[in-house]
Every structure is written in structure tokens, then in C-alpha cells.
């Protein structure tokens, strides 16, 4: 049951991710990206990582993508304003893409199918266990990353602050 759901959702993730690239309109791209994130949320639920699922839902779908959409709506991008690319850049892009495909195919060929990994502790993704892990053995990295976020926030406020002299 769970395996079939996984394959179904995984197919959807791939389709939506491709649509992000192929959509002509940037707003449509963002909307497909939101759908892709939604399928990721379902993947987390399937892995029994409820906290990660709901945080992915709130932070990525509910906040970051709203800001993406916000910015793109303000930019008002459409076909007329898009700069035309020179053929040289297109050729370079095709060559680079082919190189990537060759590398990926080569690496996948070398890989062997392993038996599915079974978690020692299936309840690890629940809020309580995750909190105990984060605030126990991983306290220092957790605090350091929060400090990093704080620094980024202060930086953003500083950058957006108007010069007092100009007013």
C-alpha cells in the first residue's frame, strides 16, 4: 500500500518539477513549484516524519512561496520584456546539459539496487523525539544555525534601512 502511494507521489513530484521548468509563464512555474513542495510534504508523512512534513508545509508552501509569488507578481514578467538570448549561449547550454546527462547516466549505471533501509527508531520524526535529539546531542549545531539565521535577519534589516542623511 505504502509503496504504491510512494510511486504515485514520486511520479507526481517529477512531473510537477518538470512543469516548473517547462512552464512559459513565471507565475505558473511558481505555482507548479508549490505543488512540488506539496508532494514533498506527502513524502515526509509517508516516512513518518510528521514534524518535518508540517514545517515544510508552513515554511516552504505557506511563507517562502508566498514571497516568491509576491515578487514575481510585482515584476510583471511577460514574453515582451524577456531579453532574447544569443545562439551561442543556447549552444553552450545544450553542451553543458548533455555533459550532465552523461555524468548522471554513468553514475546511475554504477549504482546497485540495495535492500530498503529500515530505520532503527521509526518514531524519530515525531515532535517529541526530534526535539529531544535537537536539544540533546545536537544542541550546539542547532544554536549555531539559529545564530546564523539571526545574523541574516539583522543583515536584511540593515540593508533595507534608509539612509538617515537623505531624508
Amino acid at each position, binding site marked *: 500500500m505504502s509503496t504504491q502511494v510512494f510511486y504515485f507521489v514520486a511520479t507526481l513530484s517529477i512531473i510537477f518539477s518538470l512543469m516548473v521548468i517547462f512552464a512559459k509563464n513565471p*507565475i505558473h512555474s511558481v*505555482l507548479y513549484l*508549490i505543488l512540488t513542495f506539496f508532494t514533498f510534504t506527502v513524502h515526509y508523512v509517508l516516512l513518518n516524519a*510528521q*514534524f518535518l512534513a*508540517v*514545517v515544510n*508545509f*508552513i515554511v516552504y*508552501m*505557506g*511563507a517562502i512561496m*508566498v*514571497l516568491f*509569488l*509576491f515578487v514575481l*507578481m*510585482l515584476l510583471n514578467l511577460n514574453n515582451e520584456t524577456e531579453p532574447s538570448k544569443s545562439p551561442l549561449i543556447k549552444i553552450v547550454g545544450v553542451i553543458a546539459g548533455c555533459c550532465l546527462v552523461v555524468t548522471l547516466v554513468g553514475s546511475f549505471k554504477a549504482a546497485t539496487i540495495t535492500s530498503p533501509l529500515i530505520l532503527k527508531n521509526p518514531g524519530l520524526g*515525531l*515532535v517529541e523525539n526530534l526535539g529531544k535529539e535537537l536539544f540533546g546531542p545536537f544542541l550546539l549545531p542547532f544554536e549555531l544555525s539559529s545564530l546564523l539565521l539571526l545574523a541574516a535577519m539583522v543583515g536584511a534589516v540593515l540593508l533595507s534601512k534608509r539612509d538617515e542623511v537623505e531624508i
Partner: protein
Amino acid sequence: MDTGFIIEKFILVAVIFGISLVIAMYSTYAERKVAAYLQDRLGPDRAGPFGILQPLADGVKMFMKEEIIPTTSNKWLFIIGPGLALLCACIGTAVIPWGSPMEIGGKIVPLQVADINVGVLYIFGVVSLGVYGVMIGGWASNNKYSLLSAIRAASQNISYEIAMGLSIIALLLMTNTLSLKTIVEQQHGLNWNVWYQPLGFLIFMICSFAETNRAPFDLPECETELIGGYHTEYSSMKLGFYLFAEYINMFVSSAVMATLYFGGYNYPGMDYMATLLGPTWAPLFGVGVFFIKIVFFIFFFMWVRWTIPRFRYDQLMNLGWKGLIPLAIANIIITGVVIAIIEKF
């Protein structure tokens, strides 16, 4: 997963869905009556006695009107917008515990669709998703005023979500759980969270006003500046969906406020009532009490709407970022310190 379980949940979902729709329908009537009362008018009184058939008349009117899709709009997104708004408004009811488990024919039936152990965060996720309906609809209309309104809605929603989340954190420090069922069970009798978290409740309530786009925070549909806001181009039942979604949102956020801070289905003297009425009728009485609380909050929403004028946009942002967020952080610190002191001694 047996069939009985699925049927039981299906009936529960259908009943909750029906009740939300009926309450939203009569909220439109109540809003007009409350407005009339506050402005010394009569309000709707033609359709049926006291005008109680007015919502039905409005519904028929909405369905019968001509449906216009602007030629320059993005057709699919124009249709998806109102649908998404209504969907996001409705799915919030899934995790709210409507009553204590009820005994029907020797079987204990929980009056909650899903008791997930991240219930509070689920509500939060649904709230943050709600803005997409407005944004997509406003953008797809291809109208400058709609777009401005959609952008206002998005920035307002994101700003007030932060303060809302912070005010919930202070509550979670006390309850030690994210499950709404457990949070309600902890507030037995009159042991409600609002006595311990008055400031948190105030911040949460102000933010719910902003998240549901209700006055004084209804800047996305500010008529004097934006014609009709994000639904300027909408007509017929699509417009109806947007208006309806607002009332369902109001219902759900009233239910969440009552659940988190006002004890949900708990009331003083509930143990006595439980022995008096037995395991079938006592939970139903609790559901009734819960709905009285919800109706009070819905009335409060309307009361505020017809009392306080709309904010200016910079006032809105100042209140959110410079007023509520620092207050909410101070609330978390005070709660944390008090809990640490209590645990120490």
C-alpha cells in the same frame, strides 16, 4: 482500517461540513442584523419572519447572476482562486475536537475527525495556505486593483503569521503538547488557558482578525482605494465563494480560539452534568457549550467590525512588526521564566 471506522469518520466529516456551511450562511444574516442594531436600523426583515430566509434568497441570487470571466484574465487560475479559498477555509475543521468522546450504542465515538499529534501546526499551515486563494484570484483577474489587493493580502498575512506563531509558542510552553485533543483535556472545568495567557490570547485574537481579513484589517478589500479588492472582477457564485470563505474562516478561527484559550467543550460543573446526563448526552451538551463560545466569538468579530474604522496601511505594518512581535517575544520570555521558577521550587 475497517468499514465501520470509515463510515463513522465520513458521517462526522459530512456533519461538520454541513454545520460549517449553515453557520457561515447565517453569519451573513447575523452580520447584517448586528450592523443594523449597532447603527440603529432594522436590517433585513422581508424574507420570512425577521428576515431569517434572507441567506437563502442571497444564495439564489448568487447562483442566478450572470457569470463573467474577463477575456484578458487567466481562465484556469481565475476559476481555481475562489475554489482554493473555500477549500482552505474548510479543511481547518478536521483537527478541532468538537466534544469529548461520545457513547453511541455501546461504542465510543470520538467527536474529532483526526487527532494528529501536530494539530496546532496543522491549523497554522492551513491558515498560511489560505492566502493563495486571494493571491491567485487577484493576479488572474488581470486588473491593477485586484493585483494591488492580492499583494496587500500576502504581505499582511505573512506579517501577522509571525506574531501568531510566537503567541502560540508561549501557550505550547505551558501545555507541553501539540495535540488539540490533549490541550482541551487539560482545560477541565474552568481551568482555561486564557487565565494563564491573557496577553498571548490578545495577540492571537488580533492576528486572527488580520488572517481572516476582517475589519479593522480588511485592507485587501478596501473599497475607497481598491474598488472591491481582489474580487473586483468576480461575479455570481465565484464572488459568493470568496465571501463565503471569509465567513467560514471566521467560524474556524473562532473555534480555534475557543479550543486553545477558552477550554473548548469544557465548562464549570461538567463532572456533575456527566453523572446527570450519562455518557451519550453529556458530550452533546459539551458540544452545545462549545458552540455558544464560538457564536460569541463570531459576534465579537462583527462587533469590532462595526465599531473600529479601518487601519491605514503603514499603521497595519507598524502594529504587526513593531507592536505585536516584540510583545509576543516578551510574552514567551516571561512564560519561560515563570515556568522555570515554578519547576525549581
